[in-house]
């Protein structure tokens, strides 16, 4: 069950040298899905046309050589991104039978580059959660230890890449939904700068925080995908007109001489020892490469969770008001008037966490409470931004844990929403400040559980973050979970 290729460079090389056909490459992924996914549960639906498309691409390549490294490359898509012809469920009963009319911009761009979509991946309902346990569609398991959660909300995409069912995947990150599952599953996950990538076709959770990003095994692959995904599309007015090529340029920069900040607040008491030890080793590697480490302070970051759960829920309550049973999606059959139609449809269609956040968000924006909650949260959000700005006057990027602990057990936090919310404590502030951040695998814990190192940079610095990630990647080695095939890389921390 060894994958045919490992990363996009090896794929392109094998493809162009006719070592394997695109159809074979796609089939190898589908075979792995068939073998592994019954246990892992990463996919909610598979693309029935994947093999057909692979064949078409093979035929076309017989006449014209492939123009893009992505030509024929198989990818998995989180189930809150539209792929025309496939369902977009957001892992919710509300959209169980919803089929979008058009592709998300990111999907359009991947398809234009020649990618083959394998299927849609499981997630917390409407991307609300940190363990994928809030899916209405089923359980997704961590391939490193199937008693443990894969993280969330993009749990399915993280698992698909970690277990080589898909070499790359798309996720979305509102408060850590790419980086946290990437850390839990031992893969690289990048949340880009807000405004780098069009959100058109991403089902909105919190519009001012949501950003789409890649899961990959290698920094180079993430860079290549970022170049395909980025830039204005005329359908999302929040996308900035930046040239994506700046990322390629920055990816070539030197680690030697970089100044990396260690925010004290991110290494405080709540941090698991296994994670701390792993990160210390990562820090030593980067220091040995010539990076200079310096302590920095982000005193307002500790309020990040509070701010996040006011702003994100306010926007979520607004974004989710369109699910009313009138035009599409789930409609309760119990109703006999319009008021009941709304009530029953939303009562039956949404799961408990989604309802909790709609209630919280509605409250935070309601008359008489807006100043106390939503507006106060916005003020603190501005403080957090300013502190990051100040920090980036002194350092090139920040180095921190992605999560306070390694992956936790199923049920361990699902009955305590606050404990669950705290698992995003280190990832949330990058969303609040609109900054790019990634999680790259560090050395596993003594128990063999994955650990993620987080890099947070100033706006538009994705290229440099990926460069530093690539140095860690080389030191740590690309590791694969035992259940999915042969073991690679070095020993545990």
């Amino acid at each position, binding site marked *: 069950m060894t994958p045919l290729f490992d990363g996009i460079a090896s794929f392109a090389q094998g493809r162009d040298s006719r070592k394997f056909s695109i159809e074979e490459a796609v089939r190898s992924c589908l075979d792995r899905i068939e073998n592994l996914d019954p246990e892992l549960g990463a996919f909610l639906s598979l693309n029935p046309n994947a093999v057909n498309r692979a064949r078409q691409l093979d035929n076309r390549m017989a006449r014209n050589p492939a123009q893009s490294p992505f030509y024929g490359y198989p990818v998995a898509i989180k189930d809150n991104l539209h792929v025309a012809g496939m369902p977009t469920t957001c892992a919710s009963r509300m959209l169980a039978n919803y089929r979008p009319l058009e592709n998300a911009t990111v999907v359009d761009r991947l398809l234009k580059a020649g990618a083959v979509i394998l299927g849609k991946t499981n997630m917390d309902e409407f991307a609300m959660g940190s363990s994928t346990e809030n899916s209405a569609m089923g359980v997704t398991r961590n391939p490193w230890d199937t008693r443990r959660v894969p993280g969330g909300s993009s749990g399915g995409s993280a698992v698909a890449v970690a277990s080589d069912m898909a070499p790359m995947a798309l996720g979305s990150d509102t408060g850590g939904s790419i980086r946290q599952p990437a850390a839990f599953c031992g893969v690289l996950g990048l949340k880009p700068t807000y405004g780098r990538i069009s959100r058109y076709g991403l089902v909105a959770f919190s519009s001012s925080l949501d950003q789409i990003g890649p899961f990959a095994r290698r920094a180079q692959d993430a860079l290549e995908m970022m170049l395909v995904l980025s830039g204005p599309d005329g359908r999302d*007015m*929040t996308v900035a007109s930046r040239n994506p090529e700046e990322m390629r340029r920055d990816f070539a920069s030197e680690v030697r001489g970089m100044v990396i900040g260690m925010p004290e607040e991110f290494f405080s008491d709540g941090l698991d020892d296994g994670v701390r030890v792993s990160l210390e080793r990562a820090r030593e590697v980067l220091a040995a490469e010539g990076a200079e480490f310096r302590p920095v302070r982000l005193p307002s970051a500790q309020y990040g969770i509070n701010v996040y759960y006011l702003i994100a829920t306010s926007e979520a309550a607004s974004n989710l008001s369109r699910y009313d049973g009138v035009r599409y999606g789930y409609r309760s059959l119990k109703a006999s008037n319009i008021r009941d139609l709304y009530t029953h449809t939303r009562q039956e269609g949404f799961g408990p966490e989604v309802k909790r956040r709609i209630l919280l968000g509605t409250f935070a924006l309601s008359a008489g409470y807006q100043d106390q909650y939503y507006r106060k949260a916005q003020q603190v959000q501005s403080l957090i931004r300013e502190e990051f700005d100040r920090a980036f006057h002194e350092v090139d990027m920040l180095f921190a844990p992605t999560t306070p602990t390694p992956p936790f057990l199923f049920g361990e936090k699902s009955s305590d929403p606050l404990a669950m919310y705290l698992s995003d404590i280190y990832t949330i502030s990058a969303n609040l400040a609109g900054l790019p951040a990634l999680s790259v695998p560090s050395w596993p814990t003594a128990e063999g559980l994955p650990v993620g190192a987080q890099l947070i940079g100033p706006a538009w610095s994705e290229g440099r973050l990926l460069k530093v990630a690539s140095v860690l990647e080389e030191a740590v080695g690309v590791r694969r979970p035992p259940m999915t095939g042969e073991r690679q890389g070095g020993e545990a921390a």
Partner: protein
Amino acid sequence: MNPEFEMVVGLEVHTQLLTRSKLFCRCENRFGAPPNTLVCPVCLGHPGVLPVLNEEAVRLGIRLGLALGCTVHTRSVFDRKHYFYPDLPKGYQISQFTHPLLTGGSLSVRSGEGVREIRLHRIHMEEDAGKNLHAGIRDASHVDLNRAGVPLLEIVSEPDIRTPEEAVDYLKKLRQILRAIGISDGNMEEGSFRCDANVSLRRKGTSAFGTKVEIKNMNSFRFVQKALLHECDRQSALLARGERVVSETRLFDSSTGKTLSMRSKEEALDYRYFPEPDLPPLVLDPNWIAEERANLPELPQERVFKLSEELGIREEDAEALLLEEDLSRYFEEAREVVVRYAKEGGWPVELGTGRLVNFILSEVLREWNRKGARILSGELCPEEIAYLVAQVVEERISLNQAKEVYAMAVESLRSPKSVIKEHNLSQESGEEKLGEWIREVLAENPAEVQSYREGKERVFGFLVGQVMKKSGGKANPQKANLLLKDYLSR
């Protein structure tokens, strides 16, 4: 109305904009298409879609701001306004709340014999909702979303209006400006121009505001007038009895001419406004605003000044001629024909235009109010009215005859020319013919002639009457007068 009270009215007007596409998507902005044929995932509020602001709508908003003397803000913000209703696909309307595109400005309206300035509070951009359809459907309601996402400007006045007449004139003047600068067709029946009113009363001479009531569903100028009158009576009756006015929203029922309670302010919705995260703040380049200012067409008020000066008529007459577009176009076309008649007939143009203005302001305006625009075309087109006026100037018929002819023409929808012909109406001014009738009358009434010559001047009137009678009404009265005097003095 109870004379102790004064009415205080503020108006909120929603006007649709004449853009090709909707405010946030590329769907066509058009009235009257089959239900749900002008829709796309964006205006249907599907998951994953995002709004893209239509620049043309912004341009039209800037133009209105400049025409009304508003402050055009170089930075404004879109907000979400939340409520659940089947015609509102996203569960929120994208509007502007804390930072509207336009603030300030004013509009002058006729008030009795004078003019009053009505200040504007704000004008903001927002999207229209769809329409719920109930008529002719059993046990269900249908939703048509063609209108969902159509661009609107909401124009909010200060509570400066004091009478229903001022309110109606405000609406007419506003619509005239919207049409003059080409941003709206101002069609109340099709809903492209809609009006809500906030009405309260207060004791004359006091300055504090009373409790206000919001009135909705007035879809014609006449209904606005009726609704305000009714609401004023209702509130003044309450106050006169020592009762309180309840703060509420009331609907105007055109079949009864009354307003009915819809919901009290206690039941008012909490819209939970917050900044629309999918749209960055709208930042305008000052050069763009300057460009729009330079391209603004002549505004109605300027045309009024010009016309009143040019024709030497009162400003309010010029305003009356120009206020309604149908009528003002009718006047302009008729005026051109009158100028032609003047050239051909060799008489001063002012004679004709003066008569034309008077004729339109009295006869035509009255009939137009009664019968509407159909009296402005066909057999009653501008050429015909010009012909009628020329007949009067050239003394072929008298002014009274012309008025009769016009009334008959309107009743039967025939051309004045054919009415004149059928009734053999023409005026005789020729001395030969007049002399003939006069000589006959003098011959037939020797006794009266004798009395006149003896100094009984009252008999003159009788003799004129006889001449008119003999001519069958065709004799030019002034000419007949002069000639008769001449004959009698011989």
